[in-house]
């Protein structure tokens, strides 16, 4: 489904195809809000970028130029050719050593620290090389009519439902808005599971 079709569906839901009560901008803002929610709640947009190692365990990837970064998914060390382990929480790092912020060595682990900061430990005092950052990305702004949303086809109606609900509540049609929002809510929970368990069926041997 293209964005043009989605907008047509939304107008159809609102019986607005001929009259155009809602402007094009209203629809675009509603669709952007919907996509932003879907991207944040399901983390379905995974991108990768190379980032240079720095002489600190803390990385704020937005400040390093990854502007659509939402959260880190995985990190691959291109120097040592291995994935960094991701089983530790921020508190677990204190179990390794209580001065882990000053721990110098070859990076072996990463963990989230806050909404903006990721920690890679240990850090190198004279870093060389880079790593590949796999991250969940925020949704893009200003969708073009010919493009299709980067969401599974069977779940693209989430955008319609979210946008229709948003536009209806602006006109104080709360009962109708609530119905469309409930459709979106149920679908987003299913989609979260689907994204998380993408390759679950492929686990032939459960080790």
């Amino acid at each position, binding site marked *: 489904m293209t964005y043009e079709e989605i907008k047509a569906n939304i107008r159809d839901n609102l019986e607005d195809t001929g009259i155009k009560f809602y402007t094009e901008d209203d629809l675009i803002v509603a669709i952007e*809000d919907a996509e*932003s*929610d879907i*991207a*944040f*709640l399901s983390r379905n947009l995974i991108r990768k970028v190379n980032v240079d190692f720095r*002489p*600190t*365990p*803390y990385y*704020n990837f937005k400040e390093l130029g990854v502007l659509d970064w*939402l*959260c*880190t*998914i*995985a990190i691959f060390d291109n120097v040592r050719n291995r*994935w*960094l*382990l*991701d*089983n*530790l*929480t*921020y508190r*677990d790092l*204190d*179990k*390794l050593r*209580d*001065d882990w*912020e*000053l721990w110098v060595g070859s990076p072996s682990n990463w*963990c*989230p*620290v*806050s*909404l903006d*900061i990721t920690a890679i430990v240990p*850090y190198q005092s004279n870093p060389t090389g880079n790593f590949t950052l796999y991250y969940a990305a*925020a949704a893009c702004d200003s969708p073009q009519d010919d493009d299709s949303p980067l969401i599974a086809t069977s779940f693209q109606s989430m955008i319609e439902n979210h946008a229709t609900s948003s536009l209806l*509540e602006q006109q*104080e049609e*709360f009962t109708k*808005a*609530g119905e469309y*929002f409930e459709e979106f*809510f149920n679908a*987003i929970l299913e989609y979260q599971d689907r994204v998380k368990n993408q390759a679950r069926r492929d686990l032939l041997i*459960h*080790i």
Partner: protein
Amino acid sequence: MSVWTDEQLSRWALKTEEKFCQAYDFIIDRLPLKIQEGNSLYTLPDFVINIRRISYRGKKLYPISHRDQRDYLDGLFPNGTPTNYIYDNQGLNTLRLFPAPIEHLTPELYIDLFNPDVIREQCIIEFYAAANGLEYKMPDYIRRKFLRAGISRLAYLAEGKGQNLKAYKYYKQKEQVLAELYGDQLIDQINQPRRLIFGSTTVQQNRYYPATAVLPSNFGVGVDPGE
């Protein structure tokens, strides 16, 4: 003419954001503590809700309760390099370093508290902050949508021409649903390890990394309760 004033809307926005922030600890920040020799009591700013971690020259300080300090450390207050901090019964937003520091640490303005060179020289408190709508606020990608529901709820509840209890109920429900969806996702984003590369599906993986001491089953001398 608008039914509600800008001041009202701003006040409701802040109230909505504060309420969400109190329910979900997601605003995390750091501040340096100005350490004075011999002084163990320090007052934290109002916007510090809870302490996440304290490091003294890069080494973690472990929290102990006032009772534990009295019971296990004889209630003494020696001087030395701090190893613990007492977080309760010291006063509102006050903590006590234990032992009391024996040096001065004066942080400069605008230092990078995530730089190892700075961490090595300072006492740094990492804390959960209260929202203030300016420096401490919700992430942009969810803020506008959540505040719209919260402000609408309060606006339609307020006495006056704008009151609409049906609308209030709708936005109240929407705010609750969004709070749960957004809040759970934010907490997951901050605290949960991804476990994509190193899973936790086996007992072996959980047991041996990070390494912990494994004592034999017959270690120690058994005691009865109350001994």
